[in-house]
């Protein structure tokens, strides 16, 4: 019997294709005669469109058609609000092409379709859009919420899109009874996912069959399909949406609809030619959604021993000019603020604020990095104020193992379900990181470094992540009768997370085949069209378990059929090496033959098929070929809907050297202890965590999307928006704990976003620790930068220069 493949470091089974130039990203799909799109975008944050003159652009050689809002028929409506919520009282979404007003720099105003992108861009420059004088605007959320602030949407007072309060326990009582209060205000700035492949959409309409095919670098092809069918009034079966290889998503590609996702199919149908829109990097900064700005006012009520009795958090969330994805980001932050700590009493209130800049939707972490920064900076401050060790203060508040499942009464997560932490070993993680850091050694090093005029600091941060939320996903399995290869489908899609390998491992265990013989086709509504999307670190949990259940059903069919074929009891059979064998004998039958035999045949196209034909002795029967309730072949489908999120967690630490002269940092060590339940493939888990940490390092020290006071982006390119290179990212030491989730059959939790969440507080905590000799103020604003270190040193007012 083969050993279990679940949990093994199996090499990825689609790398060879990607390594040899065989990737199939949207712009690689050969579409003969494809036309290309370029957009005219708003140069103003808020202004009114007076007129649009496309006459010169239309005459430009090579231009096929120029579309304004008047030319797009019934697409000229506000696009859907994806996730309505009772607290979202003033939702606003944009139109595919601006109509009357523009609301942010980069908003699509006119679409040009031409024979190639070069000509389309030429013609876009020839479109003459006349605007009013730009309106006053406020891009600072603290100003935008004031009574006299200019309004993004005239009918939304104070620019407040949503207002929500969540209370658990009795915070007022906790605050009355507390002995110590820790207050702080923290801020996280705008950032963007910056996937290496920008967004891309291509569409082809077949006027004869009436079929519309859309290739979309999206995380949500089934949802895009549903939306397109509904908006274009087509039968769902006539619309096929394919997310082929997608070059990273990190949340940015889960939003539907971006204007191009509707306009490109529209143009393909209108012009009877394939049409492509391949976003460039500048457009990705101007038109694809961003995330992160929140300002939290946090107060902890604690005992003198550092036990936190209550928490109050009042925060503002920047949603940009529109709120198509609802308040998911803010809602996740509002529940994540309590971290891994018991904190039984809490009151969290937030407002989502419109600002006339690029709209906000989830970006890897989705509210968790903000909440984590707030609570972890608060815990550091609480420790300092009480003269306690940072590790110890956390230990006193961690939810202990015997308290799981730990429910936070009355709180609702972003999926509308209860906040119930399912399992974890938080204290063990803390012990482990203390051991891995080697605190004694660090203390010695820190002192020795100080002697040489070098400043070493240690930072740490816990995090929790609610992963694997619903509603559901499916798994479909079919054993191919000719080859015995196992085809697997699920509805969500990968942007590089290794689904094709981990899902193959799950199936391989049930059907006794090698993972290379399991072929996953996902993200194609032509292959499987039940499911939702990739978000919230959910693929392994939700699709993984659905596929596991489908594989169990397939295993049963295989065993029953093989039992008949081999005239053996099912209990005596084992699966392995692509065949079913009678245990302890050489009597076996291949999976391909089983699959063939399960499909009653008329035509003998190969040897195995002969045995399944009507006149073959084994198949002869007076009964109908398929008994009651039986389906042909080995083909199963199963679905998994989680009862609620499963909570992963971890703790990170870093040793950072700060050069107070250059205000630069050098991360000497970065250590992660994390727990995502049972690991399907540790190599892939590590890849997810390391990539997440690198993105977190970018977010902690380098990446900030900047706008001037009029809403103009100032660094909409990779020269000025600093995605870290290998030289800015340190080696990462990874340590695993595996606490199975009790919620799902595989015992897994999600890991996609985990790495990103705690990095900023780790780095802030480490820099603060390193610069303690200068008595610097607390670092409560990320991303940090050489400038922020410089300012902190200046403001410390101490004898900063004499110490250099």
């Amino acid at each position, binding site marked *: 019997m083969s050993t279990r493949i679940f949990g093994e470091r199996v090499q990825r089974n689609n790398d060879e294709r990607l390594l040899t130039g065989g*990737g199939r990203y949207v712009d690689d799909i050969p579409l003969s005669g494809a036309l290309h799109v370029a957009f005219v975008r708003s140069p103003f944050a808020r202004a009114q469109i007076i007129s649009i003159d496309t006459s010169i652009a239309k005459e430009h050689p090579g231009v096929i058609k120029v579309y304004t809002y008047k030319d797009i028929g019934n697409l000229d409506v506000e696009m859907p609000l994806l996730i309505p919520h009772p607290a979202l009282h003033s939702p606003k979404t944009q139109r595919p092409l601006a109509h009357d007003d523009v609301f942010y720099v980069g908003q699509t105003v006119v679409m040009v379709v031409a024979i190639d992108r070069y000509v389309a861009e030429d013609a876009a420059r020839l479109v003459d859009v006349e605007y009013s004088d730009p309106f006053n605007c406020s891009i600072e959320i603290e100003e935008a919420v004031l009574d006299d602030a200019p309004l993004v949407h005239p009918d939304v007072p104070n620019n407040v899109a949503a207002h929500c309060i969540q209370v658990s326990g009795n915070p007022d009582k906790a605050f009355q009874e507390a002995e110590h209060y820790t207050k702080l205000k923290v801020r996280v700035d705008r950032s963007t996912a910056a996937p290496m492949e920008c967004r891309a959409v291509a569409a082809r309409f077949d006027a004869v069959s009436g079929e519309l095919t859309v290739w979309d670098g999206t995380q949500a092809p089934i949802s895009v399909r549903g939306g397109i069918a509904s908006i274009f009034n087509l039968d769902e079966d006539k619309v096929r949406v394919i997310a082929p290889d997608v070059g990273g998503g990190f949340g940015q590609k889960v939003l539907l609809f971006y204007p191009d996702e509707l306009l490109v199919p529209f143009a393909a149908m209108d012009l009877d030619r394939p049409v492509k829109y391949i976003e460039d990097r500048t457009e990705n900064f101007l038109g694809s959604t961003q995330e992160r700005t929140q300002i939290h006012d946090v107060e902890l009520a604690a005992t003198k021993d550092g036990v936190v009795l209550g928490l109050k958090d009042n925060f503002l969330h920047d949603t940009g000019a529109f709120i198509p994805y609802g308040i998911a980001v803010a809602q996740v932050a509002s529940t994540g603020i309590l971290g891994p700590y018991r904190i039984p009493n809490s009151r969290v209130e937030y407002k989502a604020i419109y600002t006339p800049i690029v709209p906000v939707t989830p970006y890897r972490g989705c509210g968790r990095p903000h909440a984590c920064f707030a609570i972890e900076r608060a815990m550091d401050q609480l420790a300092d104020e009480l003269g306690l060790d940072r590790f110890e203060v956390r230990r006193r508040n961690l939810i202990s193992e015997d308290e799981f499942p730990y429910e936070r009464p009355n709180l609702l997560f972003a999926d509308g379900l209860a906040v119930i932490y399912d399992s974890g070993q938080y204290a063990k993680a803390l012990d482990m990181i203390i051991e891995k850091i080697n605190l004694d050694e660090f203390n010695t090093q820190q002192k020795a470094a100080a002697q040489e005029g070098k400043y070493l600091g240690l930072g740490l941060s816990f995090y929790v992540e609610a992963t694997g939320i619903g509603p559901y996903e499916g798994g479909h399995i079919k054993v191919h009768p000719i080859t015995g290869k196992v085809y697997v489908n699920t509805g969500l899609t990968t942007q590089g997370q290794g689904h094709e390998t981990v899902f193959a491992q799950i199936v391989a265990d049930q059907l006794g085949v090698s993972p290379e013989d399991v072929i996953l086709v996902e993200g194609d509504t032509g292959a499987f069209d039940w499911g939702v999307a990739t978000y919230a670190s959910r693929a392994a949990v939700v699709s993984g378990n659905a596929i596991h259940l489908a594989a169990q059903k397939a295993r049963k069919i295989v065993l029953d059929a093989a039992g008949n074929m081999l005239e053996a009891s099912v209990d005596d059979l084992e699966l392995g090496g692509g065949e079913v064998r009678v245990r302890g004998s050489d009597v076996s039958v291949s999976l391909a033959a089983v699959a063939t035999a399960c499909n009653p045949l008329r035509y003998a196209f190969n040897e195995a098929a002969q045995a399944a034909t009507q006149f073959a002795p084994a198949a002869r029967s007076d009964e109908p070929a398929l008994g009651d309730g039986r389906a042909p072949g080995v083909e199963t489908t199963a679905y998994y809907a989680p009862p609620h999120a499963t909570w992963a967690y971890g703790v990170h630490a870093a040793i950072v050297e700060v050069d107070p002269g250059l205000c630069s940092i050098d991360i000497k060590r970065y250590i992660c202890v994390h727990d995502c339940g049972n690991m399907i493939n540790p190599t892939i888990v590590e890849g997810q965590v390391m990539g997440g940490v690198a993105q977190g390092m970018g977010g902690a020290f380098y990446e900030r999307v900047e706008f001037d006071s009029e809403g103009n982006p100032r660094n909409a390119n990779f020269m000025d928006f600093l995605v870290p290179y290998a030289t800015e990212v340190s080696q990462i030491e990874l340590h695993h704990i595996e606490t199975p989730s009790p919620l799902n059959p595989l015992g897994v939790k999600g890991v996609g976003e985990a790495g990103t969440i705690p990095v900023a507080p780790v780095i802030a905590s480490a820099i603060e620790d390193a610069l303690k000799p200068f008595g610097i103020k607390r670092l409560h604003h990320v991303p940090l930068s050489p400038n922020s270190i410089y300012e902190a040193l200046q403001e410390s007012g101490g004898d900063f220069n004499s110490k250099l």
Partner: protein
Amino acid sequence: MKKSEIRKAYPENSSDPLYSITLKVNNQEITREVSPRRLLADFLRHELGLTGTHVGCEHGVCGCCTVIIDGSPARSCLTFAVQVDGADIRTVESLQNEDGSLHPLQEAFKKCHALQCGFCTPGFLMSIVSQLEQTKGDIDLSDDGIRVMLSGNLCRCTGYQNIVSAVRQAAEQITRNK
């Protein structure tokens, strides 16, 4: 468009002038007519069908589009096709051995899980292959040394650590085989 409509004739070409270029791509000599503003990346991808070269930023920062021009790594998004008239170009499609086996660097990327979405990968491969070919045995295979070798390419998925391991593994193997 409606069923009753007659299919329109659309223009096939822009008004760009065309110039003839002759160059070697992956050891094959070709002659084509190109617009003087055609980027080499677009030429390779859309005229030659070599879509393994990817375009990530179009301003020379991310390195996704790196190809080898006359033995040196170069950004094909910052190079016009007309500039490489007479040049020898190699793209990711050329890396495999004739028997279909992987180049040692490709093999090492696979073993070390040095790619996730795979979009940046061809650029990394071409940059490192070129650097390994150019080195005269003075290559610094420390973590910091390899990270400097990688510092012309952005990756958003892996956090670079496994790429560092892959480069070291491949460099050691290539050195052993020399």
